[in-house]
């Protein structure tokens, strides 16, 4: 076994971009509604847990809820979503709001305004929050899995009414025994 530490390998960001959106599209072709959410949720949770293990292994254990959230906002977000969270608010009673003003996975989302056949009326404009709903299940689940990996049971929801800004609301249920 080689004793030298493995050099950090890099992969093109486009690969991750395409992979995540094709993941959702692929599942969308087969499932709709709650089963779709459940499938994406399961994937995201598992990925989140494994990623956080990887990113947090070098650090000392995080004991405070606020420290955990700060880690998620800075290091974890930077690794997964390529930038850090812009704004973190809390009510100091277990609810946190993470605001990302330019959520990179969804900056390019836009509705196709082409009518299905030439001459037919244009499709009705759909609010962006609705278009983004399916694509936000994965990031929420990743964050949830990450928190679980760090010992916090929480529920994560996302609010995308003003894209490209996305607000993630984290409600911590209980602190699991570490």
């Amino acid at each position, binding site marked *: 076994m080689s004793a030298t530490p493995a050099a950090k390998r890099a992969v093109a960001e486009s690969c991750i971009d395409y992979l995540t959106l094709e993941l959702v599209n692929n599942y969308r072709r087969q499932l709709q509604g709650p089963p779709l959410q459940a499938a994406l949720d399961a994937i995201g949770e598992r990925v989140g847990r494994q990623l956080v293990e990887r990113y947090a292994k070098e650090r000392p254990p995080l004991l405070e809820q606020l420290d955990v959230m700060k880690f998620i906002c800075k290091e974890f977000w930077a690794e997964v979503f390529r930038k850090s969270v812009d704004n973190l608010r809390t009510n100091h009673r277990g609810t946190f709001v993470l605001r990302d003003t330019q959520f990179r996975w969804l900056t390019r989302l*836009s509705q196709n305004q082409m009518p299905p056949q030439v001459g037919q009326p244009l499709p009705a404009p759909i609010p962006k929050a609705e278009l983004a709903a399916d694509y936000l299940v994965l990031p929420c689940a990743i964050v949830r899995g990450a928190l679980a990996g760090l010992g916090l049971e929480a529920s994560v929801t996302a609010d995308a009414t003003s894209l490209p800004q996305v607000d993630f609301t984290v409600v911590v249920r209980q602190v699991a025994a570490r």
Partner: protein
Amino acid sequence: MPCFTFYIFNRKGACQYYHEWQRLKPVRSGAGSQEEDFKLMFGLFWSMRALSSALDPKNPAKQQMGAPQRIGDGCSFNSFRTSAYKLHFLESPSGLKFVLTTDPSVGSLAEALQYIYASLFVELVAKNPLYTPGEPFLFEPFSAALNKYMRTLGLLS
């Protein structure tokens, strides 16, 4: 305004995107209808590519029609000019064909088309979760970015 129209064709010949800034001669008196216009365009490129590689005095490689090729490889025509307009063409390795018609006085727009493909199309269309490859599309961010780029090139006032 020196730029007239812009088309994007997919590999099979269907027009995915069409934008016109200025078309003084209506389609009706030209090709007859919009679909005919698209068909003529596509037929044009197919023939021009075949012709230009067949008449090539230098490149010994056999041209595979329809096969993916890096931009700049092989023998593909870049533009042709008439007394009324100049037509610029770019084929991406994925088979997407970008066409731009402008005033005949415009110089080479090969880099511009390359930019439109790499930085506008790939970023704003290919990476859009709601884009279905091969289907006609109309995305507001892409149209806006295209107009903005045309303005910076000085082709659109």
